[in-house]
């Protein structure tokens, strides 16, 4: 489970990988929080293509990132969402708060 960051202009992409469950999300959240407060990107893209599993801990992670990005005056979106994670996000209606692509 890890977070890999690449930056292109004012857009930052954070690629999350591994299981985003309660066990893994804590570290990932902390890493993301640090990345956002250090880089202050205008746009943050969470690339979920390498996420092997996600439960409602992932929802909390996305909402935390959204709150922090809003606070910093930036935007957040999630891209390359695997089917399992997509079902979790859809069941919770997260798409109304964070653009899912």
């Amino acid at each position, binding site marked *: 489970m890890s977070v890999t960051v690449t930056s292109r202009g004012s857009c930052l992409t954070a690629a999350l990988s591994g*299981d985003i469950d309660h066990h893994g999300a804590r570290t990932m959240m902390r890493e993301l929080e640090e990345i956002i407060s250090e880089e202050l990107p205008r746009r943050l893209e969470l690339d979920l293509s390498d996420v092997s599993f996600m*439960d*409602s801990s992932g929802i909390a992670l996305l909402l*935390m990132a959204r709150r922090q990005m809003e606070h910093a005056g930036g935007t957040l979106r999630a891209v390359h969402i695997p089917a399992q994670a997509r079902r979790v996000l859809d*069941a919770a209606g997260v798409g109304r708060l964070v653009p899912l692509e």
Partner: protein
Amino acid sequence: MQHIVLDEAEVSFPSRSANEGFARAAAACFAARLDPTLEELADIRTAVSEAVTNAVVHAYPDKIGKITMRLRLLEDDVLEIVVRDQGVGIPDIKKAREPLFTTGNEERSGMGFTIMESFMDTLQVRSTVGRGTTVTMRRRLARRTSQ
């Protein structure tokens, strides 16, 4: 309602967060005999993850306690998963089941029961304060054409 039990397995583990992944894998392994679709398997793993995480986070807030997961194969391709703890219990189950309700910190979304409800056919929560909580979930798996 009484069901004929065709097979069953039970695992117990301490309420350490590392066991959330173990519980998902054990449930998926047991369910595999029903030849589930990838989507059904993913739904089962997700629901188990939510139930076990609830026990890890809420049942034993200040200590490591015991969590038991019983898996049963019932007639008509119904998978039953029971996650039980002997923790603090839930004072108001109706409230706990409401979307976005959580007594946890911002690491929790309050969507656990909502996800379990969406991904399983039935969800029953029984709890006694000071005695523990039992979550029973059932899901009927679609019979594959090859069977």
